[in-house]
């Protein structure tokens, strides 16, 4: 029986979302397969790692007893011994657990942005989801858009700034924005997920405030033109070389809204007109329409854009591509990529015909296939460099 380590929590603003993703959408279905031994690894907000069966119980977190647990529990260490081994020491007793596959359930910084994947690559252990470069590119909104542009994938007009630029010459930044882009605009931190720090601005005063907010969260800021006649859609995808799309999903928000953190996670996604929708679905992130009711040609175009983005960024395992559609011009714009969709977007996959249990198993298979493929690559090369030194 393979041992799967599910890593969740972490030093991220999306710490709490990660807990729910791990416990409800990954650990539970993995255990239901009865094919794997599942180990829960929780990274606390201070970055310490914990490994315990009790961490599989959502009540530990929802009741607030996690704080008490952490004061008593001993953090674990990881041994990179040609693999990934958990080491827990309590008194004279040392407990070791060799991990066969890692299933990251981390959202945001130090987890979804490639940092954890780098560690796992160093350990040489198979893991679920995007690799270092794809995760890093996906979580950098600027880099993702630049990669899309390089691959002829349409994106809305944008400009980028560093925090230092804004601190040094704020007026110059605002001037260049107002000259090059048209209101309304979106101001976003380049690296944060779950819509944290994002502002929609319609004039110079709001723009100035929006830049300040974004700079509070990130070193790099992106300012984008809003798409007119907006329909937001998102497409969960799985696969390595031959990605497979789920169903195009339309979050049911009003045109003037955007899907901010509050809407996504705190209000059950019911902001805007969603509550009135008759054909929506309660998903991991609230109310949405699955499949999105779009003209067939627009649906096909959006699906194709999603799959092209997935490949352009070098994604593997799973990711979710967000797109913006101008319903009048029927033009589809790439917006951003989420390399670990919240709750794996299992609600969408279920509607697409893939159950939660089958989804996690498929992701494990994809992880081991990618690992095997990488293991087959040559990583050494004989030279006489040392002898010549």
């Amino acid at each position, binding site marked *: 029986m393979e041992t799967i380590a599910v890593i969740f929590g972490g030093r991220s603003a999306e710490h709490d979302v990660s807990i729910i993703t791990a416990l409800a959408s990954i650990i539970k279905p993995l255990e*239901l397969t009865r094919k794997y031994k599942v180990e829960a690894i929780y990274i606390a907000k201070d970055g310490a790692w914990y490994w315990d069966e009790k961490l599989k119980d959502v009540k530990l977190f929802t009741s607030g007893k996690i704080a008490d647990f952490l004061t008593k529990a001993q953090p674990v260490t990881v041994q990179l011994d040609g693999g990934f081994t958990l080491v827990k020491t309590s008194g004279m007793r040392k407990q070791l657990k060799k991990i066969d596959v890692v299933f990251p359930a981390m959202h945001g910084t130090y987890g979804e942005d490639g940092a954890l994947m780098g560690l796992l690559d160093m350990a040489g252990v198979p893991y679920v989801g995007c690799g270092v470069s794809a995760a890093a590119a996906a979580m950098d909104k600027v880099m993702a858009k630049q990669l899309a542009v390089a691959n002829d994938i349409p994106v809305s007009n944008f400009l980028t700034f560093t925090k230092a630029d804004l601190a040094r010459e704020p007026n110059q930044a605002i001037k260049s924005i107002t000259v090059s882009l048209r209101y309304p605009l979106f101001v976003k931190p380049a690296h944060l997920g779950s819509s944290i720090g994002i502002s929609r601005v319609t004039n110079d005063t709001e723009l100035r405030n929006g830049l300040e907010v974004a700079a509070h969260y990130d070193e790099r800021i992106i300012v984008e033109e809003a798409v007119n006649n907006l329909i937001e859609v998102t497409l969960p995808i799985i696969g390595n070389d031959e990605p497979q799309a789920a169903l195009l999903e339309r979050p049911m928000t009003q045109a003037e809204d955007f899907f901010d953190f509050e809407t996504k996670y705190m209000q059950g996604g019911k902001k805007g007109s969603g509550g009135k929708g008759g054909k929506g679905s309660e998903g991991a992130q609230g109310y949405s329409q699955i499949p999105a009711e779009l003209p067939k040609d627009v649906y096909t175009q959006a699906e194709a854009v999603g799959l092209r983005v997935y490949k352009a960024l070098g994604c593997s395992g799973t990711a979710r591509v967000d797109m913006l559609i101008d319903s009048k011009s029927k033009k589809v714009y790439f917006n951003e990529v989420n390399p670990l969709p919240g709750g794996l977007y299992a609600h969408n996959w279920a509607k697409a015909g893939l*159950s939660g249990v089958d989804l996690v198993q498929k992701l494990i298979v994809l992880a081991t296939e990618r690992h095997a493929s990488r293991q087959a690559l040559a990583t050494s090369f004989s030279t006489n460099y040392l002898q010549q030194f």
Partner: protein
Amino acid sequence: MNLRGLLSLYSPRYPTTLVYMLQSTEYQAAAYLAWFWRTTNFATVTQRRSLDRTKAARLLLTALRIGMLVQIALGLFLVLAGARAHHAGVELGGIIAIVIYPVLWAYLITLPLQLGRVFISRPAEKRLINESKKIFANHPGAKIAVAGSYGKTTMKELLATVLSEGLTVAATPANKNVSSSHAYFARKLTGSEDVLVIEYGEGAPGDVARFAQITAPTHAVITGLAPAHLDQYKTLAAAGQDILSVANYLHDANVFVNDESPDLVPLLKPAYSRFNKQGALGWKVKDAQVSLAGTSFTLTKGRRSLPLQSGLVGRHQIGFLSLVASLGLQLGLTAEQVQAGIASTKPFEHRMQPYQLSGAWVIDDTYNGNLEGLRAGTQLLAELAATRKIYVTPGLVDQGAETERVHVEAGRLIAAARPDIVVLMKNSVTDFIVVGLHQAGFSSELRIETSPLDFYTNLNHFVAAGDLVLMQNDWTDNYA
């Protein structure tokens, strides 16, 4: 019983487990004690449900705990007193008192129940039943008895629903189908009802004949015969004789029998009126269609034609619906009233009840408890289209000496439906079902679940759009 099982007798949860076992067996001492002696580990008894802390349960639990504590205290006292007085016999008595308290109190707790039943419940019930006999005898309405090993509650509800479109109808509530519940039902009658529908819940030889004597039916509907309660009846023929004793009461007149029940056919007399999916009371069925939305067909008789649409799911429902529709017409309903009545029929809870889960369709038939219901369910599974068909069952309880035969046959029926996945809840009949599956050449995925509750509560993780899941039968803890 291994060491872990032995230690479970002395666990703090043990008294709660005993009361749970009593409650689960509906406070029937014999069934409770049989379960008690079958149990090898009391820590694993509570699998499917937990103790419902009713007033009676709380009272019993308190009495049990106090009794056990008193006995332990007495035992300790004797041990200490014996040690002090150097009296080995007293010491031994104390040790015995401490050791045997779990078993002794498992019996003692049944004592107040037995006494209450003998001196209070039974005499009161007897008076009530005698009163009800007079009420039923004097009631001017048509009295339709519904008997059979399966389908009784469905038939009763269908009759009540459809006949209510044009008549004043009273029916026995829920699955209250024995003499004492008939008696409570009789007390609530006003005498102005046009029709009474009375369900007969047979459980042991002589039951149905007695129900007939008390309720004085004018009509009888026999829904089917299948192995059930064979622990009491011993043979299927004996169960059939008991069920058909209501026909004897009616001198074989106004007796309507489901002749799609293969075990019932050899027992039928020519005087009985038969019904099946081809029709009833001279009405013929045509253009039958079955889907998850319901069942539709047209009844025809001579030039008359009556299109009907029901929310009930499954071809096996057509015979029942045909009888109810034609009997409704016979009792004076108009065609429009019959159509409206049939249109308002919908699946009953846990009986071929379809619902959607994670995009999949699930048919909940967990109240089914016999082979014929299983046959109907598997035929439905075979008939409906789906990307992936999943069949889930723990097997059938109360099959007595027929257990092996019935479950091997169940395995064959399941295999014939060609499901993609079969999920069996691990218990004493699982191996028999597996034999049947293999005999019928089943080669798809077989999953044997050791934790049924975990499976049922997490079903949403197993299914996706396009899946069709049929869940049949229930296997409560007292059948462990």
